[in-house]
C-alpha cells in the first residue's frame, strides 16, 4: 500500500501533506502576504501589466472564451484557472505556450446540484481536450484554512472522477506542478 504521495498544491493552504504549497492572493495583496511560494491572480489582461515583482506564479481567472484566448495568447501567465467555456483552439494554444489548466476542487465543493453538474461537465470537457492536445493539467485543492486541506489521495480521486488515468492524475498533482514552478525548463 502506498501511504504517502509526493504532491505539490499550486493553490492551497500550507500543510505537511504536501512537498510545496503555493498560496494565491489577489495582485493588490501580494506584498503583504509573501511567505513561501506565492502566486497572484489576475482577472483582466490589463492587470498583467501591473504584476508585482517577485511573484512565483501568475494565475489568470478565465470565464469567457474571449478572456481565455487573451490570457492564453499573452504567454505571461503560468496557470489558467476556471478554464471554461473551453474549446480545441484554446487547448492547442495552452499546449503551445505551456500554460497549465487548473482543475480546482473548491469549485466543485462550493457548487451544488445543477451548478455542480455544470462545473463537473466543464471540467470533464477540459480534461478530454487537454488529453487530446497534450495541454498541461494541474489539480489544486483551493483550500483557504487548515480544516479544508485535502490529502493528495483525495486530489488523485478527483482527477480520476473527471476522467484522468491514475498515472495522469498523479502527474497532475506532482510532476506537472513542479514543471510549472520550474518554468517548463
Amino acid at each position, binding site marked *: 500500500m502506498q501511504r504517502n504521495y509526493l504532491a505539490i498544491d499550486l493553490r492551497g493552504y500550507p500543510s505537511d501533506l504536501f512537498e510545496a504549497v503555493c498560496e494565491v492572493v489577489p495582485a493588490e495583496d501580494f506584498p503583504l502576504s509573501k511567505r513561501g511560494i506565492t502566486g497572484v491572480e489576475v482577472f483582466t489582461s490589463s492587470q498583467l501589466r501591473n504584476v508585482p515583482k517577485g511573484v512565483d506564479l501568475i494565475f489568470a481567472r478565465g470565464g469567457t472564451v474571449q478572456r481565455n484566448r487573451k490570457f492564453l495568447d499573452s504567454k505571461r501567465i503560468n496557470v489558467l484557472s476556471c478554464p471554461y467555456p473551453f474549446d480545441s483552439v484554446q487547448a492547442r494554444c495552452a499546449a503551445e505556450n505551456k500554460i497549465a489548466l487548473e482543475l480546482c476542487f473548491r469549485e466543485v*465543493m462550493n457548487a451544488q446540484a445543477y451548478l455542480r453538474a455544470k462545473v463537473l461537465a466543464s471540467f470533464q470537457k477540459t480534461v478530454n481536450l487537454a488529453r487530446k492536445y497534450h495541454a498541461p493539467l494541474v489539480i489544486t485543492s483551493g483550500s483557504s484554512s487548515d480544516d479544508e*486541506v*485535502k*490529502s493528495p489521495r483525495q486530489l488523485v*480521486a478527483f482527477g*480520476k472522477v473527471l476522467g484522468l488515468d491514475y498515472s495522469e492524475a498523479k502527474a497532475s498533482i506532482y510532476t506537472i506542478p513542479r514543471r510549472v514552478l520550474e518554468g517548463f525548463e
Partner: protein
Amino acid sequence: MIKKTQREKRRYILFELTGEETFKREEIVTAIWNSCLEFLGELGASRTSLWVHEYGNRKGIVSCNTRSVDEIIMCLSLVREIENKSAHIRVNGVSGTIRGLKMVS
C-alpha cells in the same frame, strides 16, 4: 454461503474529521450517505457497496467495492457540514484490510 473466492473485493478507507466540532457516529453516517446520494444518485450509491464500519476519536473507516474507491473518496471530500455545523473530512489511507489501515493510523 458464498465462497471466499466469489466474494466481492473490498477496500477500506480511513478518514479523519477536521475542525473543532465533535459528532456522534449516527450523524457522521447520515452525512456520508447524504453526500453519496447527492453526488452519485440512488443508483450510483447502490453500486458502491458503501458501509461505515467504525467511528470514534474523530477517525473512522468506511468500506466499498474496488470499482468505486475514487467515487467514495470524492463523496467524503464533498462533506461540508454535519448537523448545520462546519465539518470537513480528510482521507488518510486506503487499504485492502482493516489491519493495514490501523498500521497507518
